[in-house]
């Protein structure tokens, strides 16, 4: 890989161009492979596409750029503390709109840190929700008959199902 390359250009699934630095791309194995392909390829004009929409890719790249310096050098405790605070702020975006997309992107791009963070955010949001709220955000149809529902309640006396 040529050391002169500091950033590569990628396309989102919507066809928008994004720049991502080499060190940030190292947070994701698939991105890293793409980067090596681009750098070693004879045909350097080809811009690789990432199957993530623009709105999500902006957030993913923002996360990568923030975490890359620490991931590459090893973090001190105070850095780790600061990064934790940044993560909390980062996840305060309009989560319900974009969180599932972030989860899928992090899974597809093999980004363990972002994936765990997004799972925890989703879990924190969900834990106090009612069953009907969960069905609404996941667009799930209730497939229980009323008898089956009653049976579930009987299995867990004293537990709230609303």
């Amino acid at each position, binding site marked *: 890989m040529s050391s002169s390359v500091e950033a590569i250009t990628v396309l989102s699934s919507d066809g928008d161009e994004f720049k991502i630095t080499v060190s940030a791309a190292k947070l994701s194995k698939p991105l890293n492979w793409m980067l090596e392909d681009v750098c070693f390829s004879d045909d350097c004009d080809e811009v690789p596409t990432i199957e993530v929409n623009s709105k999500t890719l902006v957030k993913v790249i923002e996360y990568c750029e923030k975490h890359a310096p620490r991931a590459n050098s090893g973090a001190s405790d105070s850095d780790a503390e600061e990064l934790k605070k940044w993560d909390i702020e980062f996840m305060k975006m309009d989560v319900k709109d974009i969180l599932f997309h972030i989860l899928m992107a992090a899974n597809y791009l093999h980004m363990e840190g972002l994936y765990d963070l997004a799972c925890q955010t989703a879990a924190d949001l*969900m834990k106090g929700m009612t069953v009907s709220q969960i*069905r609404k955000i996941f667009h799930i149809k209730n497939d229980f008959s009323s008898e089956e529902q009653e049976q579930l309640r009987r299995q867990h*006396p*004293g537990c709230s199902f*609303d």
Partner: protein
Amino acid sequence: MKPQLVAGNQPYLAEEIITDILKLLPVKSLIRFQSVCKPWENLIKSALFITEHLHYSTHQNSCLLLKYGNFSSQTLHLRLLDWEMQIHEILHSRTFTRLIGSINGLLCLYPFVLWNPATREVRQLPLPRKQHDPCRSTTGFGYSPVVNDYKIVRIYSNFEPDGYTLTGAEVYSLSTDSWKDVDLGVLQGVELDLYLVNNVSANGSIFWRGLNSDAIVSYDIATEVFTLIPISTIPLSTILTVYDDKLALVSIKNKWIELWVLQKGIDSSSETWSWIKKHTERCPSDSLLWYTIWRNHLTFYGHYLPIHDLALYLFKIPTNEMKVGLIPEVDGDQPHYVFNYAESLVPLRQHPH
């Protein structure tokens, strides 16, 4: 699971992603979410999910189970302390007088009942066949992943002129729901006082420390074999606890606290045991009421000399970074003893396979 879980404007989340989110949820939410749809119900009830949830709960979400009152008290009073130092009442009973052990979110109470406080499931157990005077028996509770079974072990002893001698043992298995006699093996006739000593379960075995003895009794839940493990180099003032799913000893000697972890090595002829010193810490106090390991912290309850307040002092392993917690007082009661606890979905019905 069918891919109809998420539709409309939301993307389809793969089953794998949904599982990864759900396993971070508290048991209370998961019981409720069984009624979201059938695929979720099947997932939450599956043995694999229960194991994955337990793993997360044990490593990231464990609590201290505090026992109030003393050994002679006729009631059993238990409260949970979470990492945010919030207290949760879980049991105040006159029916049960002792907590025998706590593992994988299940509690074994005396007289014999298994209880999962998170799912509220209770299982009444048959009585042991030997109705011995309880002073002459010691009990332990544990789990072995090898046989995927929970067992309760009772070791009986007789008082003889020189002291207590071990005479027999009985084991209850959750998978067969019955008691049976087991051979004490090398322990038969050994002079050892096991009266009211604590037991812990780790790595598929149950362990007891004899009173004033330089040996630990271990019972392998899968093979049902008793062993005596020597602890010659470690001082007597120790407690048994669990570190990294291994048996650990916390000992106090000359104002220093040491954490020793048991390594089991198997050479060609016999099992060998060795103790590795994992951590050393200046003893915070002369007056510690109890201590344990909690979320990778050496955890002490007592008066800390420079500060002098009765509090919970937590030292991170291996950095020694200190955190102080106050256990909220309820009715002026102080916790007398501690167990580790992580909530789980582990069912008490017969194992499904």
